[in-house]
């Protein structure tokens, strides 16, 4: 299939704008002073033989680079330049003066040598000058091992990090975010979700009460509220806090977070449930295998727990997975028709699936946090470990 956007070098000039080469030349300025040829002066005219001349030139060629390199400041550089190639008293100008005293036949050879030395030294001087100018612009040398100026770094709570990731993955699959109250009517928390009144199914939900309200024991009430408010097709994710009358210990908390998911439309099947949740698992945990087991929730039928391959032992069995090779990730199932009916939805026309998972457990496992209470303590030293 052809890309709609034209490719960058498909037709048209390859160089649309001014050549960068021109620009580089224009910016290339070397100190003008070294470009001017030094005029001869006739203060003192030593007489030399060609050999003596050559020897003096080679000596200059040998000493010059070290003197130039040793110039640590612009002042020192100026001194070095004057000493080496200075127009009046430099060693090169002395040579040039001497050049005229050589026999004519020797002058050509000597002149070429002097010129070569001059060019070499001037090139070195130019480079050193540029380097010193750069140093001057940078200011005095700093100790680069010293620390930068820090600002406080904020952090997102590890449970929120898990929720964020779950949300992002389900967004790719077309889900939006729904929310509901934490203090909830018992009908939304239980009755609408097909919990039989006074039934052992309620024992799985040790409930905290607020007079005639409950602190929701799961995020599933958001399913019913959403179904009452919006018509299918529905694809929502409902993160939120839920409450259980569980004593606060290393592995239980009376309030924790949950993420609920709900899909309702015509033609939604258990195959969609398996496919979507398996895709989620692969995005969340990396390439993995999933397993679905029969389970029971009053508000789904059929109900299933989803496991993923234990990431610690890769399925061979270890203490983390209680030797089963699998780790339980979420509960799920096809939305019970009674739930749809309780929300005024035609349960014959529409089907759906739902799931719920606990991000805190994932956060504990992912970060190796040994005690769930650490998530609630809000110890700054803990939170800083998640600074960004």
């Amino acid at each position, binding site marked *: 299939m052809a890309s709609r956007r034209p490719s960058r070098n498909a037709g048209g000039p390859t160089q649309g704008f001014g050549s960068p080469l021109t620009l580089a030349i224009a910016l290339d300025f070397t100190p003008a002073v070294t470009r001017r040829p030094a005029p001869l002066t006739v203060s003192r005219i030593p007489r030399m033989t060609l050999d003596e001349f050559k020897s003096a030139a080679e000596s200059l060629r040998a000493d010059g680079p070290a003197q130039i390199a040793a110039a640590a400041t612009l002042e020192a550089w100026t001194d070095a330049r004057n000493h080496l190639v200075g127009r009046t008293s430099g060693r090169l100008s002395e040579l040039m003066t001497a050049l005229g005293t050589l026999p004519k036949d020797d002058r050509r050879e000597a002149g070429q040598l002097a010129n070569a030395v001059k060019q070499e030294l001037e090139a070195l001087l130019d480079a050193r000058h540029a380097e010193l100018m750069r140093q001057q612009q940078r200011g005095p040398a700093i100790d680069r091992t010293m620390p930068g100026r*820090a*600002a*406080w770094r*904020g*952090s*997102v*709570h590890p449970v929120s990090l898990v929720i964020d990731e779950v949300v992002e993955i389900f967004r790719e*699959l077309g889900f*939006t*975010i729904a*929310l509901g109250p*934490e203090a909830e*009517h018992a009908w939304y928390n239980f009755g609408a979700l097909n919990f039989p009144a*006074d*039934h*052992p*199914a309620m*024992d799985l939900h040790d409930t905290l*009460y*607020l*007079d005639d*309200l409950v602190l929701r024991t799961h995020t599933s009430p958001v399913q019913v509220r*959403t179904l*009452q*408010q*919006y*018509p299918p*097709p*529905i*694809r*929502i994710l409902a993160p939120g*806090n839920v409450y259980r009358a*569980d004593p*606060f210990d290393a592995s239980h908390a*009376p*309030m924790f*977070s949950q993420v609920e998911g709900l*899909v309702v439309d015509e*033609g939604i099947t*258990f*195959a*969609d449930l398996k*496919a979507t949740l*398996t895709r989620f698992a692969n995005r969340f945990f990396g390439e993995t295998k999933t*397993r679905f087991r*029969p*389970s*029971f929730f009053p508000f789904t*039928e*059929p109900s299933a727990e989803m496991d993923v391959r234990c990431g610690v032992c890769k399925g061979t069995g270890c203490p983390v997975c209680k030797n089963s090779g699998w780790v339980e990730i979420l509960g799920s199932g*096809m939305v*019970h028709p*009674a739930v749809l009916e309780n929300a*005024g939805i035609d349960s014959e026309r529409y089907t759906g699936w739902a799931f719920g998972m606990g991000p805190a457990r994932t956060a504990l496992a992912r970060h190796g946090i040994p005690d769930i209470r650490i998530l609630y303590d*809000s*110890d*700054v*030293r803990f*939170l800083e470990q*998640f600074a960004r």
Partner: protein
Amino acid sequence: MNLSHEWLKAFVPHALSAEQVRDLLTAHVATVEGFERLRADLAPFVVARVIETEKVPDTKLSFNKVDDGSGTLLDVVCGAPNVTAGAVYPFARSGTLMPAGFKIEKKKIRGFTSNGMLCSAAELGLGEDQAGILELTTDAPPGTPLLDVLPLGDVRLVLDVLPNRPDLLSHLGVARELSALTGVPLRGDDAAHAAPAVPVVREAQQASSGGATVRLEDPAGCPQYCGAVIRGITVAPSPSWLRERVEAAGVRSINNVVDVTNAILHGLGQPMHAFDLATLAEQTVVIRRARASEKMKTLDGVERALTPEMTMIADAAKSVAVAGVMGGENSEVTDATRDLFLEVAYFDPKRTRQTRRALGLSTDASYRFERGIDPAGLEYAMRAAIGMILAVAGGRLDGSVMAVGTAPAPRPAVTLRPSRVRAVLGASVSGAQCERYLASVGFAVARKGDAERVENEGGDAALVVTPPSWRHDVTREVDLIEEVARLHGYDKLPDTIEAYRPTTVPDHPLFAASRRVRDALVGAGLAEVRPMPFVKGDDATHWRVTNPLAEDEPHLRVSLLESLARRAEYNLSRMHGDVRLFEVGSAFGGREQGAGRGAGAGGLIEEVRVGILIMGARSPRHFADGAPPMIDAWDAKELAERAASAAFPGAAIALDAAEDPALWSILADGRSVGVVTRVTLDAPVWASAAFGIEITLGAMPLAYVSQPGTSAHAGERPAIAPPASAVRYRPLPTTPAAAFDLALLVPDGLNAAEVERVLRTSGGDMLESLELFDEFRGAGVPDGMRSIAWRLTFRHPERTLRDKEIDGRRSQLLKSLENQLGVKPRTA
């Protein structure tokens, strides 16, 4: 539910390993969450071969060279007469702990070092045979673990039975499933000793037999009751097969009678009770409600206060058991018991549940009655119990089984459409397959319409399915679909991802707002926290949790700052004074407006808020700067503006002075949305001042969306919200600005905003910005005054301002300030 692998095999003689059973049950029935080899103590034993053997004269001993697979032949002394060179035996290396509790040590016997022990069956706890060591028939090489060679000992499988499947709370119930999954037919429990055919008298209210009488006075609490009299038994320890069964189920063995009742409970799922008949006044059993203020001591020795809501088993004079929960001490079977009254009953689930909760007493029996036992299984369980007791405790059945009450009505049939199975599962399972699956677990299946048409339609005609008596959970078509799905196997169902239609539900605005605020605050260097919302609180202002977990924090917070303050104190107590925390969470208000306690929590107002608490250094210390200043009110003010802008994008945010201890109230488009306040903490002296900010992002309405059973949308898609208004571009200035500073002497009592108002109104159109950059009291500033300095920047949109114009504007401003506020410039 603890399952014995061996016991299950007694019901379904399958050939699967315990591991295979575990995997089958987990995949199709319920999760096996525990797997325990009951003879794990035999794990260290290995198979060993005797290479040479030499009798020690005048003793029973032999010196042996033994190959235990380690590569070196071991010297082993053995006292058994049957040691044979070339044979293999169970071997305990030195260091092995024997089942009897002692350790095998390397020791010298008659100058001969023994490095282990060849074991007999008795030494391994495998039987009574002490004639000699246990010769093994195996090809396994020496060194092989003994458990790999001998299928020794039982395996306990712990099944996680969920509330919808009480039928799985017995070996019989699980065996039914295994039978369906393996195709091996279910047979009667052999341990029930082929439950004898016993005569039964059936009556609605009262029956007598064997000298005893049963009278049912509470048919609502006990729809069916069976009793039987057995005389002349001997109470004794159970035989080993019975003891092993109940112990495999995790129950302590008591005596032969009690163990039989437990074997019936765990084997058939029918709780039962045995009374000492001699303790029952007039040998009469009455099923009735407890009398007002009646008391009874249960078998656990606790005196129980009873209420008339509870169903009791009584004799002619007194209560002898709490029906379905626990027997009474007064009628307990003891070693002296000779005559028994056996009870097998169906107690009402709700009644049992209420009684159990009222007494706070949960038992294996109440657990099953509460969830519902098989109401059609009573007489079979009674026959099995009688058969077992006669076998293990002797005695004889006196008279007939007395069955009082009404037999259960058959369960209503449920229609299953194969087309619906496909619609829900997304898989093609034919009507014939559905029928096979359902029949395999005891459902009676008939086809609707004539059989010929059914064939022609590819078996797609609806099925009329009657659930078995033990399946209380199947009342709708979808329940049958679940049966089909699990028996077919979830893993065999397809999982292809399908196209979907976009949802009608917009993102909840509070979710988006929380994300924006969170991002802003994390960017500002704050840490997000997720603390508990429970606080000490006060009944007058806070909602109290009816059943709080901690009495010192029984209320829900009205403000997030309550939680954050406690979290700050937690950090201060750990010597950490740089605390910058925020939370997005719920606050629960409306208590003060609500009526008194007990009037309901309908007035509760839940709001999603962001709470912020900051204290400590403004920035980390840097060597180039010296110690950073502490966070002060101005940091809090800026942070509040930043958070409010993130919460209400596009709104005009203003901070108005507020009453102490609050500093400012936060306004968004003129509406009060929050507060900036000083926070008082229980803090050590070195702690710096703490500031709190709380902004309400929005309410989370509690009201019903619409009445139960209805929706508020009538199938209509909601209108799509208009896009948020975008930032408007302002042309960038093309002319230079002119600026000057103004230092003014402002009398106390006049606030800067008042001065700024005059500066703005008098500054004219060309006043581009106004920046307050200095406040000073002291030398050169009279008492009762402060010097405040502003930089004013002016710009003409089209041309450069002339110096004269600027000077004129300056004089104009000073005149206005003097006239309107009496404020003069500070002269250097």
